[in-house]
């Protein structure tokens, strides 16, 4: 009897020891802050603080080839035609399939891609690009300057319905004098041209034949590091390595399988159990915990996206600037950021993040309830008013932000209901101006022109608030064509002051981009422009 109990105790002890050993983290991670000095468009120097988690065992040499990377993304791609789709979920895939003439590196410098170099004429009106020799599309055909001309003309053609056509608004002509040269002539100096044609994958070079046979939206054929294999809706997108890729030796992986997992918590479980090796999103409330747990590598980088409250200037009482400013004074942005994104967002009173050289330190609206009440009284609403927030559960953070904002605005008598809509219905109501206030974000902007022009210039397509200020319009038009960086800085600091004072948007915060992966995934960096590139990624196992 006693013996039996002893044996049981021993067995139990052994088991407990085994379990404890199995549970202890095998790899610890180290948090360090790196200050990176980077050059934007070779003229502006800026300092960026990048928080990065680095594994002490990381070894820069000894890249291992082969293997399939399982990557989790949260939404289905909405079509694969890079010139037409505007969905981030499409570009997550297309980023690896297509190339642009020039591209952005992880420090947001414009660098060569399909074009090895370029020259600008004396008068700043002619740009000449030289293509690399021997670049092949995935169907085996060689890329020529005609493909570039074709792609750009397709984007410019209104019949295509490309959301990127405005990027060519300054362009007069595009020609291919020979097979490896592309000449772009602009009507006015366009300091932003490289960014316009290489800033995002909507400017990809596509072969004419897949447009002609109508397969461009279903089976993309590009020049990128990975070839498209198949897409199973609601399940996965499969890519395989392009053995003819123009960058020697890349990619290192045999392929990438994007698994579509909409539910955040399920996605996280998949990552933790190793079902997927890489994840494009994490539940924000768990980012810090995961980063310190060491189970996976969490990479958090300040992003260029911004989230804001859009006010309907065509409706009372938002037509009164005092009411808009009262709202801007009444809210506590740090709390909103915390409520919506936990500690993965930075409060900001303007759109451009403080990591950008275009950041404006004009931040007049520190929470001041007295001032807010006074402004409301001056506008004729001493007791506040009833209104609504239009949000969508497609972006859960808008619902969460609305709850915090609702409580904050109630303090000055503004009682806002929260109207939660499905994404399609939300977009429709925004387009029709059928709202009082909405909460939304804009993503993927880099140049200040992108941050302001299309959303605040009078009558522009994305100007949903009905805001119009001739002084601002004039400045915005000047800013587009100004080549002197210092003058341009002045223009946009003036622009940001006007927009923040007029408050058609009440800006809230800039979220960080967060990607996470298993420790054996190497050579991947989360980028501030949210582009997902697996061309240098490899698996250490």
């Amino acid at each position, binding site marked *: 009897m006693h013996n039996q109990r002893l044996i049981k105790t021993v067995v139990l002890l052994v088991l407990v020891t085994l379990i404890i050993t199995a549970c202890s983290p095998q790899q610890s991670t180290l948090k360090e802050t790196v200050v990176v000095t980077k050059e934007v468009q070779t003229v502006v120097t800026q300092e960026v603080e990048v928080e990065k988690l680095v594994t002490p065992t990381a070894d820069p040499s000894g890249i291992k080839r082969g293997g399939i990377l399982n990557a989790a993304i949260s939404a289905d791609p909405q079509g694969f035609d890079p010139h037409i789709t505007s969905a981030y979920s499409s570009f997550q895939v297309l980023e690896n399939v297509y190339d642009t003439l020039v591209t952005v590196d992880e420090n947001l410098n414009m660098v060569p891609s399909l074009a090895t170099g370029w020259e600008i004429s004396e008068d700043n009106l002619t740009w000449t690009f030289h293509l690399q020799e021997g670049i092949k599309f995935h169907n085996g055909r060689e890329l020529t300057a005609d493909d570039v001309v074709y792609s750009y003309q397709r984007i410019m053609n209104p019949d295509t319905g490309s959301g990127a056509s405005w990027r060519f608004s300054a362009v007069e002509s595009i020609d291919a004098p020979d097979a490896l040269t592309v000449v772009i002539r602009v009507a006015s100096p366009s300091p932003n041209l490289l960014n316009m044609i290489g800033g995002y994958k909507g400017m990809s070079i596509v072969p004419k034949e897949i447009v002609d046979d109508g397969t461009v939206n279903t089976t993309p054929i590009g020049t990128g590091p990975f070839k498209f294999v198949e897409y199973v809706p609601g399940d996965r997108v499969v890519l395989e390595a392009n053995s003819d890729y123009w960058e020697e030796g890349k990619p290192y992986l045999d392929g990438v399988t994007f698994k579509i997992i909409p539910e955040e918590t399920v996605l996280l479980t998949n990552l933790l159990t190793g079902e997927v090796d890489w994840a494009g999103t994490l539940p924000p409330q768990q980012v810090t915990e995961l980063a310190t747990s060491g189970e996976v590598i969490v990479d958090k980088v300040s992003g260029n996206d911004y989230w804001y409250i859009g006010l309907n200037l065509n409706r009372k009482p938002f037509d009164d600037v005092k009411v808009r400013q009262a709202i801007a004074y009444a809210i506590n942005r740090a709390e909103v950021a915390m409520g919506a994104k936990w500690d993965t967002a930075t409060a900001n009173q303007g759109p451009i993040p403080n990591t950008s050289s275009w950041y404006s330190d004009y931040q007049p609206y520190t929470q001041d309830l007295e001032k807010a009440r006074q402004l409301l009284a001056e506008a004729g609403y001493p007791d506040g008013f009833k209104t609504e927030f239009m949000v969508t559960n497609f972006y859960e953070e808008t619902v*969460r932000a609305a709850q915090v904002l609702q409580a904050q605005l109630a303090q000055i008598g503004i009682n806002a209901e929260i109207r939660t809509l499905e994404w399609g219905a939300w977009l429709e109501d925004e387009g029709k101006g059928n709202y009082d206030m909405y909460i939304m974000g804009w993503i993927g902007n880099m140049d200040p022109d992108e941050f302001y022009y299309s959303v605040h210039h009078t009558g522009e397509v994305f100007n949903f608030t009905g805001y119009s200020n001739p002084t601002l319009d004039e400045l915005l038009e000047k800013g587009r064509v100004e080549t002197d960086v210092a003058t341009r800085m002045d223009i946009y600091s003036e622009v940001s002051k006007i927009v923040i004072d007029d408050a058609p948007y009440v800006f809230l915060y800039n979220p960080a981009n967060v990607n996470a992966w298993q420790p054996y995934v190497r050579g991947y960096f989360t980028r501030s422009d949210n582009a997902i590139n697996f061309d240098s990624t490899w698996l250490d196992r």
Partner: protein
Amino acid sequence: MTNLTSTDLILEEKPQEINQPTHGWLLILRRLLGNRLARIGLLILILLLVMAVAGPYLAPYDPNALDMANRLSTPDSNHLLGTDEFGRDVLSRIIYGAQVSLKVGLIAVGISMVAGTLLGVLSGYYGGLIDEIIMRLMDILFAFPAILLAIAILAILGEGVENAMIAIGVVYTPIFARITRGSALTVRQTTYVEASRALGASDGWIIFSHLLPNVSAPIIVEASLSLAFAILNEAALSFLGLGTQIPDPSWGRMLKESRGFIQSAPWLGIFPGLAIMLTVMGFNFVGDGLRNALDPHFQQIFSKTRSS
């Protein structure tokens, strides 16, 4: 557990005549209180009722008040059940949520009881084509899984707690219609109804003075059981984001919001989950107790088949 109840009841109840009507609310109440599970159920329901009625006086905090500095605080003396992701007091939200649950349950079941009884009586009393049409319609509604039908109705009406009540009400109408019709068919052929008719009583008189009293017992039982399902469905709809809208506290909605915190703040899910479970259990116990109290005959057959 069930066996225990059944034996309890067998010991307390004496076999009665099959057609002897149950009468006297005191008698029913005494029978109900004699059932241990029903006593527990009643206790839970009284607690729920107190929470719903006296919520504003009981809740230690405003259920919608944000306190970002104290979010996700663990249950302690300041916040007995902890706080949620916005620093809202979980206990206060559960207390206020009782109001929502009870309101939705009562109104939804009220809708289905009135509509179902009316349809069932019409169908059972008149028979023929009316019966065919009504009952086939009910069959169609009955063929859908409850929650699926509710979602479909909400897709037409739009989200919100009022529409959720209507949707749940429609979903449970066929059950009441069937029960009523069954009883009405039997009662219609009794001699006293024939006698009444022979004396020149109108259809309305017969329905209100003979039919309805005879179907009231099964309807009351069904209503108390349906309340449990209605509350469960409201929680499910709110969990899916179709029921109670933010920021109003609803147990289902609290469960939905707790999903991201299962590991870091489990109390966010556990307490509303417990509240739903206890409430549903309470209604079920009382419903079972009522069934036994109102229909001793049924209870006997029931307990015999159960224990065999």
